[in-house]
């Protein structure tokens, strides 16, 4: 759904069409995405159109990337520690 919305705004039925889900299941999923601030929707007449909240997505992606970078850095230090202690064990 997020992938489809990344191409541009879409109506609920357009989003539901390629998915092996009922329309009400799609609506439920959209509700979760909307509550998380990832998707915005508005009604024009009888058609509800959804758009991706790029700013929130970008922020989340950056957030996750930073958290990942933090752990990568710790593991670099773990590698260094393991190399150091291996050398010590050899010396003994």
């Amino acid at each position, binding site marked *: 759904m997020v992938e489809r919305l990344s191409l541009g705004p879409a109506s609920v039925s357009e989003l539901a069409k390629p998915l092996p889900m009922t329309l009400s299941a799609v609506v439920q999923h959209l509700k979760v995405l909307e*509550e998380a601030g990832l998707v915005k929707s508005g009604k024009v007449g009888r058609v509800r159109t959804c758009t991706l909240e790029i700013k929130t997505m970008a922020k989340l992606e*950056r*957030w996750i990337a930073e*958290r*990942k970078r933090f752990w*990568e*850095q710790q593991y670099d230090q773990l590698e260094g520690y*393991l190399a150091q202690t291996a050398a010590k064990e050899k010396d003994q």
Partner: protein
Amino acid sequence: MTVTTATFSIERVLNASPARVFAAYASLEAKSAWFKAPSDIETLDRDFDFRVGGKERFHARWPGGMVTDFQATYHDIVENERIILVYDMFQNGKKLSVSLLTLEFRAEGGKTRLIHTEQGSYLTGGAEAVKSREHGTTWHVDNLAALLEGREARAFA
């Protein structure tokens, strides 16, 4: 506040046996040698109780004045095989995220494949909050980046 969930994983092949990798997590002395901040920080609290139900805490003040708090509880420990913990990350007393972290140590020849899988709930602002607190949120994310990169947090301006 709205919660956003996300999962990511990291894999590393480490040049050591699973027993040595596990040992690097299992004592405060070994863990402190690598699980540390890249810059000079003041440690406010450091707890380490490595057993199921035990807690770990790393509460610190950074050079810019920012206070971060890593609070974890160990949920599952299988010697030389895996460690599962849940950790909260706080910044200046505010909770940023709650994560379930699964660490697996798989023997691969004489080496170890470390698999880090993190399922997190990120307590970011909601759609309406993002608009009204854009500035504040950006500042928070920037400071989180600073924290993770070891840079100094910048003042709210």
